[in-house]
């Protein structure tokens, strides 16, 4: 992260970020916060957990900053400091791999669906059915 | 009397053509190895005149007394000045003696 200062705030990361404007904050702003030494605020940024890890920011950065890695680091930091709690999906996923070494998607989907009210539960159910009929979940 | 080549230090005189030791050796004993570093082709044929040791700009050469007649590892290291030479003599017990004298021009 020592190269944070190299950022010229050109905004390419944000312009290419698919979720920045869903979260109301942009990767550029997060880097700026870090430049300003406001890590706390950066850690709490809603953007962090919106990130789809699509790597667009990192690959397009003219200064070669590992923007995504920075995001992920902040995610971890936030949890280690107990400031934030990862969404259910992450926790369930972790339990699974720690238990069985692998992940069963439908259980994962199902469990994390239970932790939050799913959009269009019926549609979900239907999809589960279709997947099951096509042998994609067992 | 085998002259020892320190492969680390030797740069084959940049392997431009003949390294200086090859040029100077009265016995025509040095050549440039495949690795572009100096090689003594026949250590037993050396007369230990130490011309090669004196001329090597990288300090990569050392004259050794063969073990059969001299113990490990005494050293005799010449350092060439412009008009004087110094010798550092280290005996088998590590005792150091130094010599320095004029080898060119007037003695005063």
């Amino acid at each position: 992260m020592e190269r944070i200062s190299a950022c010229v705030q050109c905004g390419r990361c944000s312009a290419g970020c698919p979720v920045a404007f869903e979260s109301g904050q942009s990767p550029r702003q997060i880097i700026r916060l870090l430049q300003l030494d406001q890590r706390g605020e950066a850690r709490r940024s809603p953007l962090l957990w919106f990130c789809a890890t699509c790597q667009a920011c990192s690959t397009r950065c003219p200064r070669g900053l590992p923007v995504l890695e920075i995001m992920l680091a902040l995610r971890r930091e936030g949890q280690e400091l107990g400031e934030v709690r990862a969404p259910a999906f992450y926790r369930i996923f972790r339990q699974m791999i720690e238990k069985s070494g692998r992940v069963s998607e439908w259980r994962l989907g199902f469990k994390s669906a239970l932790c939050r009210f799913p959009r269009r539960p019926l549609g979900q159910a239907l999809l589960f059915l279709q997947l099951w009929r096509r042998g994609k979940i067992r | 009397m085998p002259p020892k080549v320190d492969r680390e230090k030797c740069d084959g005189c940049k392997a431009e053509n003949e390294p200086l030791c090859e040029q100077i050796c009265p016995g025509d004993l040095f050549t440039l190895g495949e690795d572009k570093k100096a090689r003594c082709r026949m250590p037993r044929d050396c007369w230990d005149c130490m011309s090669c040791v004196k001329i090597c700009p990288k300090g990569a050469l050392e004259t050794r007394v063969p073990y059969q007649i001299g113990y490990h590892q005494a050293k005799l290291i010449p350092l060439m000045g412009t008009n004087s030479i110094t010798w550092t003599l280290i005996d088998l017990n590590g005792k150091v003696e130094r010599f320095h004298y004029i080898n060119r021009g007037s003695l005063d």
Partner: protein
Amino acid sequence: MKYLYYPGCSLKGTARDFEESFKAIAPDLGIEIEEPGDWGCCGATVAKSLSKELAERLPLKTLEQAAKANRELLTLCPNCYLNHQQALDRLRKDETAKASPSRFPDVKQLLDVLGFDLGPEEIKRRLVCSLAGIKVLPYYGCLTVRPFPPGGTESRENPQIMEKLIALTGAKPLSFPDKVDCCGGGLLLTKEKVALKLAGRILKVARRYAPDCLVVACPLCHFMLDGKQNAIERELGEKIRIPVLYITQLLGLALGVDHIRLGINRLITSPRGLLGKFTRN
């Protein structure tokens, strides 16, 4: 060509058809794979979000297996590929630090193998039937090209390798400006609405080109664009109805492999129209 094959979780579940189609065409393409029984999850994007240690540990197991078997590692799922590739880079970094030659073989993703290890010419030799008359829209998504583009040389913004492969089959590849945009798959189980929005954007643009099908090389993309297509249509309030095939399935068809063996019957969005066209010529 022999690889150590790493399936990854999805390939045994929602992306079953991906694995099936790959295994169905592999022999015809002269690709041999050996699959270790005891592989473990690579950690996807989750591990890195939770614990560095965990993220760095998980891929090691497979890499060791590859080193032991002294085979290059092949993963179908780009996410698994990314994690293993990154782990490999870390290992090699400290190997070079110790100036010791690497004992770990390379890690490959599907497009590396098809597009570069084998190469279009080689594949062309083996194709048996033409898919002429079909318009195909290739979609790469993120991790097939970012950060490690196929063959290490492909463009990250405008990759061409899938186009080349599609062209081999006789089908017409359409150039798709949004081909490297994110499908949002990673957010499906946390920020579903956003996820659907992103996938929706892609499908909407895709529809402009009126393709007979989309072709992908990533289980997650496939799940979003195929599995979630109904949901997306509902979000957009308009019909899309584009079948989404794995590149392996498309090649399978050109190799004359029966589409059941290719798992095409497992698609959610019906490929009937497409197959109709195909059987006609």
